[in-house]
């Protein structure tokens, strides 16, 4: 035997990731972003694209299959689904973003206070979020919505917003807890920095990448919650057009074998949710990679 055979070098073996894996990790989810932008643009330009009044009940043409005049057909009330998609998308997107704005704001304030205050206040605040977390979200939404009375777009956003901040608050609290004793926070407090100053200049830049993924996912779940509620008939009323309230007609549609009434809004909803999930996943991977690079 030669020396070469007796002696093999042991070390860190280089593991080469397959080209596809590298690509899927690094590259922007261009397709998802493009589709999302298209949908958002379509909703913003709804008045230009969809010339028909979405609320007009065309009783002569109800439950018509897609054709030249009604691109996506009409529903059981005679409304043009093509117009409804773009106008209703506005409502769905608005609820998604507005609810997320509310929940993120609550989460940032609550999580930061919990993270920065003394041990037992922190424990108490976190137990409270755990109690809320243990109750099924849909149940709480229904309960609060029942107290508020008839659902409107804004009230529904508020209800979804104030019931979906717990997990973001927990992540923020953990991040804040890690950096609140770091010397630059102490230094800032010594110089007289108020809670808001420390929060804005020192804490927020450090936890923003950690919650970015959750915020995008929150938009997604807010849109999904609205659709679920409207589908069950407990969300927006039929005359407020959103993708959820369009789906709530599905019961009757299925009996009349009018597939387009349920499939078309459903398709748009699923595509939007998949795009948001994709973008959220990409954000999470970038954030994780940045942290491992530190």
């Amino acid at each position, binding site marked *: 035997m030669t020396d070469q055979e007796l002696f093999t070098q042991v070390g860190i073996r280089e593991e080469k990731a397959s080209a596809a894996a590298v690509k899927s990790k690094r590259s922007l989810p261009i397709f998802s972003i493009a589709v999302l932008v298209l949908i958002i643009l379509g909703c913003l330009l709804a008045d230009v694209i969809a010339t028909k009044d979405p609320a007009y009940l065309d009783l002569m043409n109800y439950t018509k299959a897609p054709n030249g005049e009604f691109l996506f057909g009409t529903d059981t009330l005679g409304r043009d689904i093509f117009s409804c998609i773009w106008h209703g998308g506005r409502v769905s997107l608005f609820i998604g973003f507005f609810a997320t704005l509310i929940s993120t704001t609550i989460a940032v304030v609550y999580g930061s206070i919990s993270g920065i205050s003394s041990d037992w206040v922190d424990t108490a605040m976190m137990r409270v979020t755990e109690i809320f977390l243990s109750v099924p979200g849909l149940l709480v939404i229904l309960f609060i919505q029942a107290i508020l009375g008839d659902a409107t777009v804004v009230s529904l956003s508020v209800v979804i917003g104030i019931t979906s901040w717990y997990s973001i608050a927990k992540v923020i609290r953990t991040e804040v807890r890690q950096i609140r004793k*770091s*010397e*630059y926070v*102490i*230094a*800032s*407090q*010594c*110089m*007289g*920095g*108020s809670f808001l*100053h420390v929060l804005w*200049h*020192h804490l927020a*830049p*450090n936890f923003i990448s950690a919650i970015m993924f959750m915020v995008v996912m929150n938009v997604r779940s807010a849109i999904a919650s609205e659709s679920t509620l409207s589908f069950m008939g407990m969300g927006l009323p039929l005359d407020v057009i959103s993708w959820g309230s369009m789906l709530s007609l599905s019961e009757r549609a299925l009996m009349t074998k009018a597939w387009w009434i349920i499939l078309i809004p459903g398709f748009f909803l699923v595509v939007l949710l998949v795009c948001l999930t994709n973008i959220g996943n990409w954000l999470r991977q970038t954030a994780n990679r940045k942290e491992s690079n530190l």
Partner: protein
Amino acid sequence: MDNAIVTVKNLTHRFRLSKKTVIKAVDDISFTIQKGEIFGLVGESGSGKSTVARCIMNIYQPTAGEILFHDVNTCDKTAFRQNRKLLQTARQLIFQDSASSLNQRMKVADIIAEPMKINHITPPRGSYREEAAFQLRYVGMDENYLDKYPSEMSGGQRQRVAIARALSMEPELLVADEPIASLDVSIQAQIVNLFKHLQKEHGFSILFIAHDLAMVEYLCDRIGVMYRGKLVELAETAELFAHPLHPYTQMLLSAIPYPDPIRERNRPRMNTEDMIFDTEGTFREIRPNHFVLTKEAAL
């Protein structure tokens, strides 16, 4: 003494670890820092030096005793609130680890301007950026560093930025908590010389905490030696190095290496590990302006 800027009286601070264990980090110590003086605080790790600094800066609330800054009792919450502005601008703190005392996500210009922005001080040199550039030049750095992040600079440069941030408020008292301990020797010399230069120009007082006696001898006017939470000896630098009276101080001084190999090899060496010194007794003035913690009236 009339000229005192900080008076520490019977300061005690305990840390409660659990219901049963309480650690006395600082135990009944008293000293004053004069105006325009560099006061050194030395002692081994865990002897309570940093706790004293943090009590003076109001980061910790002392368990007992009081700290007067000018005539304001900083431990009293109402007095602190009434003089908040003065206390927050006139006292500044520099930390040991410059990497963690600067926010990694802020640029140098923003870091230096932060205390001015917090206290709504109109920058005397026009803009915040101009002011930051001025302070940066003052600590010996080029203004090209203004747009750098802390991670792009060396430890010595970061420490200079931390010093510039403290100086931007033109403080009367600078509390430097081991500002040179994490730097290599050549940078230590730069920073110590910077302190000396700044102190001459500004005339502020410095509480300088270190465990390197050679640096303290070079920089400080008066030195306090701490051991297990007690102040065991307090004297002017020359006096302390000429006549160390407390056995712990003697041991510390014997540990300074001399840059002379023959003298260094022949020197009697003390075994530092098994030594436990007495921390009982009272603080007495044995020689003029030379205080020692001792049981006997005369040493």
